[in-house]
């Protein structure tokens, strides 16, 4: 699908497996990290890894958000007992980070490292290559100190060995130069070979050929799974913080993975009155845009799409999931369902509409009970047959339904639908 964030724990765990080989023996990274979750306690981890009890520890949430220190979610230089009680206090608590509320469920525990110098290193892909950003003034204030960061570009088809790293190592003393060069080279190989889109160590240090990354942020290109699954080994792609997947979203995600077509669903506001079931990645965004542009953003219940000629069965499953969500909470004034889409290239409109009609059959009574009006606009292969079928189904099931074809502007159906929202603004 795209670049997706992974847990700091996973990034470090994977790095530990590759560091020695990729640095040609010049560096090691011990990968002393454990992940504490509601199911895997720190006690259990201590039984497997003796350092958990013997070393001073750093503990922090590992849920794809940063600035943990600033949010009071960072415990450093703590004993095992301190860490344990801190974890007990924070586990399953709800916190606010930025604009988002979410539950803390995953924590990273690692040995506390005393840093005499905080270095910064990041790799970031762009179209023609990858940037290496380096600074000897890393740490929490890196953004404020960004003018201290030096950057070199590695062209996409260049070997890292052929790139002169000297310009970014200005701030490093001469006797440390070789070690940094080896370290950056090894980490860059790791970044490139394992198909990261972004990888940041801030801060980090090294001592006697051992690498100490304190904080790590990583995004993997999940489309490379077929190339890297051996190296990644069960890596997890968690939903962004505060966006835990609902069972229905999970279900659609699984459906999507199994299918050659594309099926996406994000619930934005289950109490919303504007629901969309739109075909096509591009069109779905435009429908959501138009709802927002016309001032109904806060009523928009879902974002989603189905495309790539899904089967009747898949479309049925998708429509059923949506109708089920839609008919859970009764709202004063009723709701609208916009079954939209552009003019398809090769998705068979009649076949996909068969699936939608089956779902309407299942939920007809509920739809009426929740006072749901349905607005349809679609074009593409077999659209005439598809539209005729759904119009007929609407009559047969006595649903409040309006059906349009490609002769009407694609998003016109949105404004028509919104005007029909009783008590609309």
């Amino acid at each position, binding site marked *: 699908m795209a670049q997706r964030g992974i847990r700091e724990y996973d990034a470090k765990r994977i790095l530990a497996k590759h560091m020695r080989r990729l640095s040609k023996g010049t560096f090691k990274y011990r990968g002393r990290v454990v992940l504490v979750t509601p199911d895997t306690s720190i006690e259990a981890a201590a039984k497997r890894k003796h350092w958990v009890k013997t070393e001073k520890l750093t503990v922090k949430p590992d849920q794809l958000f940063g600035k943990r220190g600033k949010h009071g979610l960072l415990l450093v230089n703590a004993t095992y007992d301190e860490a344990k009680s801190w974890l007990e206090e924070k586990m399953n608590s709800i916190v606010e980070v930025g604009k988002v509320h979410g539950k803390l469920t995953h924590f990273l525990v690692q040995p506390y490292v005393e840093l005499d110098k905080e270095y910064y290193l990041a790799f970031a892909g762009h179209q023609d290559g990858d940037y290496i950003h380096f600074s000897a003034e890393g740490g929490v204030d890196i953004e404020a100190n960004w003018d201290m960061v030096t950057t070199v570009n590695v062209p*996409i088809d260049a070997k890292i060995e052929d790139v002169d790293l000297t310009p970014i190592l200005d701030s490093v003393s001469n006797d440390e130069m070789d070690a940094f060069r080896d370290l950056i080279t090894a980490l860059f190989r790791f970044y490139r070979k394992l198909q990261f889109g972004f990888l940041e160590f801030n801060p980090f240090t090294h001592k006697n050929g051992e690498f100490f990354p304190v904080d790590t942020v990583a995004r993997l290109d999940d489309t490379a799974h077929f190339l890297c699954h051996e190296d990644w080994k069960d890596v997890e792609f968690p939903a962004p913080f505060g966006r835990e997947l609902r069972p229905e979203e999970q279900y659609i995600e699984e459906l999507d993975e199994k299918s050659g077509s594309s099926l996406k669903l994000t619930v934005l506001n289950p109490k919303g009155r504007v629901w969309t079931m739109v075909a096509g990645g591009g069109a*779905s965004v435009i429908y959501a845009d138009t709802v927002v542009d016309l001032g109904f953003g806060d009523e928009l219940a879902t974002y989603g799409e189905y495309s790539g000629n899904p089967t009747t069965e898949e479309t049925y499953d998708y429509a059923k999931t949506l109708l089920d969500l839609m008919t859970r909470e009764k709202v004063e004034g009723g709701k609208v369902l916009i079954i939209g889409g552009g003019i398809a290239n090769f998705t068979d409109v009649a076949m996909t509409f068969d699936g939608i009609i089956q779902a309407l059959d299942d939920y007809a009574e509920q739809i009426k009970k929740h006072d749901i009006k349905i607005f349809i606009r679609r074009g593409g292969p077999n659209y005439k047959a598809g539209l005729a079928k759904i119009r007929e189904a609407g009559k047969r099931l006595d649903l409040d339904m309006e059906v349009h074809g490609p002769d009407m502007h694609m998003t016109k159906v949105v404004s028509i639908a919104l005007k029909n929202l009783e008590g609309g603004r």
Partner: protein
Amino acid sequence: MVKPDYVLFDKDTTAIIFGNQQAAVQRMLHFGYLAGREKPSVAAIVNPSGGRKGLMKVFYGKDEILLPMYNKLGTAVKNHPDADVVINFASFRSAYDVSVEALNYPTIKTVAIIAEGIPERQTRQLIALRKKLGKWIIGPATVGGFGGGGFKIGNAGGALSNILMSKLYRPGSVGFVSKSGGMLNEMANMIARNSDGVYEGIAIGGDKYPGSTLVEHLLRYEANPEIKMMVVLGEVGGDDEYEIVDAIKDGQLKKPLVAWVTGTCAKVFPSEVQFGHAGAMARGEAETADAKNAALKEAGAYVPNSYDDLDKHICKVYEDLKAKGIIEEKEEVTPREIPVDYDPRTMRRSTNIISTISDHRGDELLYAGIPISEVIRDGYSVGDVISLLWFKKRLPKYVTEFLELALMITADHGPCVSGAHNTIVTAMAGKDLTASVASGVLTIGPRFGGAIDGAAKYFKDALERGLTPRQFVDEMKAKNINIPGIGHRVKSVHNPDMRVNLLEEWAFANLPKHKLLDFALEVEKITTAKKNNLIFNVDGCVGIVFVDIMHSTGIYTEDEIDEIIDSGTLNGIFVLGRTIGMIGHYLDQKRLHSGLYRHPWDEVLYMLPSETEVLEYRKAK
């Protein structure tokens, strides 16, 4: 004629399709036919997975036509040097390798990549490669596009009804480019309703790193004098749209541009939501749709307040250009008619068998297009008829002469060989001609008569790989394979096979070059030095001389020769020739009124288990 750089597609553009995509091929052909193209827009299909070579049956207008199908991209490119587009339908796993290969062929200018989910690093490598080679990539993760009033990529443009509705069969004045492939038809429809239609429409695909960018296509449109205005549909995420802003500001883009960036809804979403497209995720304020729309507007593009008003802006810009006389009213063309809307289910049902060699339906029977009257009156020989029905063309005289020579030489070899023997035994059992001859024909195979194909194949392969005769003999020995075409039960160096001598004489007299025969004779020197009867036999000689003949005609490529050998054509010579002899043996037995044959028992060695073995077996049981 050399096309200008800004033209990727026109009415003569032809493409090679990678992937067995019959429906997409058919849609491309229908499109081209509607638009009045002279020849189909698909030159060839590459079907790597099935490995099936041959022909794909498709419609071009009312006619059913056959398109060549290969199992290697390289062969298709070589045989179709005019095709400069590869449409790559390979899956995300292999799309990269196929695209690299395609880009590296000098005759290929544009590669369209359909697959979604290609790793970003691979796409970035492809972009670097295409820039180095000065070529174009459209995609990945796209349906493609259409343009020049006669070419479209795969499924772009959708159903015929849509192509007609949006008048895609003739070029309009508007150049359109979007990220989204799904919006391509929708936009073409909108543009057709508000202007004189699309000249070219490209969807670059929703990935973070598209193979070619929005601005690159807009710059092509700027350079194309047929295009008078442009429409671009961008998307939240990435900074492609700022390249457009820069291009407007520094004067590279001067034609009126209507623009809209989708994803304005992202601002009301509580946390990051990944849209359907991989590239659609705003990282930072500048990548939001609102910021990009504002920047485009500020640079001078026509930007509506919402997608809802995009159509009105297109209409206004178009009408302005028309009022100024920049766009002239074009005369509407009527598209050619296609009998029925395309439907893959009915199409596959239309015919079950393809025949490309003969047709009995007309006034006269046709052999490879030649009326039977012409065959008779113009004095075609039996060899000519064979060449029409086997090779679909009248081959030069020396070839047909050789065919006849080979038929005569292989017609019979006495009553003791397995084919004649079986025919005789069956005839003596009172069966009819068909059964008797069939039972003889059925013995033809790898041990009897069937070495012709094998000899041609192994010797040709060895020569092509540059092996010396010695290396070839050693290699076959190491693999423990008897060299087909070498060795005889009865004949030897001292008792040579006259038939082989005759064939060789003919070859030396009639062929300017006979490389494979020379090679085979060198091989024979080595093998006969080992053993007297390892001589070059008649099967081998027919096969090998025939390969030399095919080379000498100059009308066959190596691949085609291999295909002729692989399909068993050469064994056909033996089957046909020997059938003459077997029919003879059948008739001979009938004339003689021979009775049922029973093999004399003293000619059989009986070796059953001994009594003790049987006893032991019984005990054990």
